[in-house]
């Protein structure tokens, strides 16, 4: 568990320098995937860097598992945490395998164990170990480099994974694929992941908790659902994007959750695990009123009716706050 208590930080020495962080308190529970989001200058990156002490708070404390980090040896602390940055920062003079193996080497693992770990991680990220292990970073595409970057951060089996705008420089298709991989790894390993992004869709897709910052202050902390349905103020609503809140809400819920237990109809099919957003898209594409849902094995799993999607009684689990109208 990571705990920020009344953390403030100012860059520069002049009295009127804006505060990068202004009295921030935050708890990040173990196993969460917390997304720090905000515009530029909101302090999101500074907050992340305080977790591995790349930045120091001027006042306030940051504690890891109840222990104030100021008293922890810096090196051990960083070895316990994986760190991924937007520009990847692979060591260009080392092979992919050696890059991934750097933290295990520093931890004193045996060579066989390191080799096994490298193979395991490369396979996890769909990179053939015999092909990619001996390559140099400049021989990889941008997406492959960031895969290796994440693999390197995970190599030492860290308790916490810190990601500073990890996919900001990648094109949308590759970004989506990597987001899926991070989500998969998070669900499989149960590691605490803290990620910085400025992309609200990425935050909604990945986060179990979203922390929205503005000018060094926390504006709202909550689940994606809470952020969408109960934005704390006008700024949050603006940031999320007022015009497509409904569509974004739909993307948080699976098609299966609104399934009616009925016999299959002569309508298009959709996996039950797909989001309601995809369901709307499919309905609109085919100009029909209902969809047959399929479970993972391809068996029939009920029918989704368009009327249920737009019926407040069924979407009642996503209450839209009443004050939403005042801002509109």
């Amino acid at each position, binding site marked *: 568990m990571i705990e920020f208590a009344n953390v403030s930080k100012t860059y520069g020495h002049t009295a009127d320098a804006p505060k990068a962080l202004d009295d921030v308190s935050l708890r990040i529970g173990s196993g969460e995937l917390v997304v720090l989001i905000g515009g530029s200058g909101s302090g999101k990156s500074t907050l992340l860097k305080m977790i591995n002490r790349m930045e120091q708070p001027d006042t306030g404390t940051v504690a890891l598992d109840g222990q104030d980090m100021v008293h922890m040896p810096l090196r051990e*602390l*960083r070895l316990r945490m994986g760190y991924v*940055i937007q520009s990847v*920062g692979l*060591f*260009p003079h080392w092979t992919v395998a050696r890059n991934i193996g750097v*933290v295990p080497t520093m931890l004193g693992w045996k060579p066989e164990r390191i080799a096994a770990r490298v193979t395991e991680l490369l396979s996890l990220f769909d990179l053939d170990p015999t092909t990619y292990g001996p390559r140099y970073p400049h021989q990889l595409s941008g997406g492959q480099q960031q895969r290796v970057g994440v693999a390197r951060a995970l190599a030492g089996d860290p308790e916490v994974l810190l990601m500073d705008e990890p996919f900001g420089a990648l094109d949308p298709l590759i970004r989506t694929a990597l987001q899926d991989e991070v989500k998969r790894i998070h669900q499989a390993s149960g590691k605490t992941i803290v990620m910085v992004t400025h992309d609200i869709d990425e935050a909604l897709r990945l986060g179990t908790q979203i922390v929205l910052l503005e000018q060094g202050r926390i504006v709202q902390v909550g689940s994606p659902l809470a952020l969408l349905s109960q934005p704390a103020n006008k700024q949050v609503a603006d940031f999320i994007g007022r015009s497509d809140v409904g569509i974004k809400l739909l993307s948080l819920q699976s098609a299966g959750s609104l399934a009616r237990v009925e016999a299959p109809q002569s309508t298009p099919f959709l996996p039950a695990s797909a989001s309601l957003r995809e369901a709307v898209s499919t309905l609109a594409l085919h100009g029909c009123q209902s969809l047959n849902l399929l479970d993972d094995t391809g068996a029939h799993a009920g029918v989704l009716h368009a009327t249920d999607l737009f019926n407040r009684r069924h979407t009642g689990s996503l209450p839209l706050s009443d004050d939403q109208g005042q801002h509109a």
Partner: protein
Amino acid sequence: MLKPRYAWLGDKLLWAVLLLAALVFGLPHSEALFASLFPQLERPVYRQEPFTQLLWQHVLLVGASGAAAVLVGTLAGIWVTRPAGRAFRPVLETLVSMGQTLPPVAVLALAVPAVGFGELPALIALALYGLLPVVQGTITGLQAVAAPVLQAANGMGLSPWQRLRQVEGPLAMPVWLSGVRTSVIINIGTAAIASTVGAKTLGSPIIVGLSGFNTAYVLQGAVVVGMLAVVVDMGFERLARRVDWAH
């Protein structure tokens, strides 16, 4: 293409070394050749000292001054790029850029009033002048290491020493090496001129020949010292290919 067994036959460095050796050992036996080229000269081959000895002294002078320059220059370059010495970096850089507008021969000449004639002023001048490209190469090389790489290294928990030895050092190596190469090549030439301040080097036949109107001496000294520079440069070229991580 040559078969792998005979690949060494295509090694230019090997041939250059052999040619240098042939020159050094063969020149004393080339009386007939130079006598026919320069019929008006009484003594067409330089014999005051054997060429082997001159070569050895030349290499020793450049090697000793080069070693001092590389050691001091590298340490200074590393020091001013660490937090402890960062404040001195502008001064050092100003000194280096000012120093490089001085011609090496002027440094040599200025060393004489300071320490007198002989090997010592040559050694000091060569070491001092040789410092400049080494310091510059070290700073430029360390400076060129990409910021994200350093950030990643710090974030992963590499200690400052590990970072320098495993990441910054190897990455700065090519630029550093080209600084050392410049330093050594300049000093091979300056060491030749150092025979004017009393050091015995491969420049001696040239200077003796110039002052005695013996073009044959000049030619012999020039060929050997030119070949030495080419050999050393090729050696650095070979080394540069080895440390180049950006294959």
